[in-house]
């Protein structure tokens, strides 16, 4: 009997270790791999990715900044961009595997709840004195902002820009804190601060094609796990998480 005790103890310890390992690997994507993945993702995905799978290591920033970091050899496993331009450039350079579209978004104009400039429509930007904040032209949301203004014949309002930010979170924050009278952001970012800002719709005919792409980084040592994670975000579960956060389904033209 006494000779059996150590083996029973070892068996229990092994079972506990296995249980622990299984628990650690039980991420939202349902894959099995040791340690978290490193995911570089557009700032606008901050809330939804953390909600979908809080067990990975994220780096959120403007997609243009993340693209540059990957070019410089940053140790990312996955890159999720708010514009196909960033992923496609990396794909052309062989730095990521073939990207896929995984969601879409829309732009909106936001104003602080107090609405000091009295804006009711995007067209009002022409006539009123306003402190406008936008993202830089190289940032996806900044590029989309300029597309909207061009489509609506409102490019002249760019002369009212008081600050050009490095990502959409910075634009959202400035407006929410009342440091600017208005700013162009994604609808999903506006939702996240809906208690602090009022959303002004941009007409459907002037909306840019906001498409998010995701790809495995070519030099990732965790390719199999990264591919599983991407499968997860494309699955019903992943798409539901995106939808709950206000993102749009994968557009017909991209599927």
């Amino acid at each position, binding site marked *: 009997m006494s000779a059996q005790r150590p083996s029973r103890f070892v068996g229990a310890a092994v079972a506990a270790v296995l249980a622990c390992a299984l628990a650690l690997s039980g991420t939202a994507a349902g894959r099995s791999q040791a340690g978290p993945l490193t995911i570089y993702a557009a700032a606008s995905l901050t809330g939804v990715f953390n909600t979908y799978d809080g067990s990975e290591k994220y780096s959120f920033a403007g997609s243009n900044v993340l693209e540059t970091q990957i070019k410089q050899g940053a140790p990312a496993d996955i890159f999720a961009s708010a514009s196909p331009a960033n992923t496609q450039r990396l794909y052309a350079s062989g730095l990521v595997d073939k990207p896929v579209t995984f969601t879409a978004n829309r732009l909106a104009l936001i104003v602080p709840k107090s609405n000091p400039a009295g804006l009711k*429509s995007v*067209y009002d930007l022409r006539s009123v004195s306003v402190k406008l904040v936008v993202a830089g032209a190289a940032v996806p949301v900044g590029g989309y902002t300029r*597309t909207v*203004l*061009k*489509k*609506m*014949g*409102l*490019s*002249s309002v760019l002369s009212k820009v008081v600050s050009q930010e490095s990502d959409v979170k910075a634009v959202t924050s400035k407006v929410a804190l009342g440091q600017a009278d208005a700013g162009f952001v994604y609808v999903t970012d506006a939702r996240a601060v809906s208690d602090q800002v009022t959303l002004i*719709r941009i*007409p*459907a*005919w*002037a*909306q840019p*094609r906001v498409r998010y792409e995701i790809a495995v980084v070519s030099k990732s040592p965790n390719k199999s796990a990264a591919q599983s994670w991407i499968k997860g975000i494309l699955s019903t579960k992943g798409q539901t998480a995106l939808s709950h956060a206000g993102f749009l389904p994968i*557009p*017909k*033209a991209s599927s």
Partner: protein
Amino acid sequence: MNRRRLILSAAGVGLAATGLAGPAGALVTPAPTPTDDDLAYANFGLAAEFLLQDFYGQVERAKLVTGTTVREIKRGGFNAAEHAFALEQLLKGAAQTAAVRDDFDFTWPDGTFATKKQALATGLTLVETLLGVYLRAAAVVTVQSYRGLYASMAANLGQQAAALSEQSGGRIVGISFAPALELKTASDVLEAYLG
């Protein structure tokens, strides 16, 4: 000359886009650069023509009309498709990304296609709104050939408005001076349908 080229040359779009204008395609001064305002009319018009094309298709599928009216509805859909093509070429010629039909999820209020009367009333709203925008564009855009295109499309929309009005029991010949509409006003009217 194929049909596509015919549409474009009739509207002056192809010539403006290539910088070739004048009799027999003689090389003259480069086409003027369109302003953002000029192209805003085209962006709005393209979306509205896709919407109108969808409207005519819905009326046809709902079998709300019969006889010669079916022919008019089909013709309206055909005109909308040709207008959309001309506007797409105009935008591409100006180095802009033109919207495609799949960029929109059209929204039709409940009951829009429940009765012929309701459907035709909706169609008349769409057509008269777009007519107003083209009249405005024909007056204010800076590129001469674009003005021709907008005037030509406005004339066609006047015919569509007459047909829809007659079918819903209204006048064929309406008011003497159809109102030109600001883009913002027209955008507010159509936003409910454009999704």
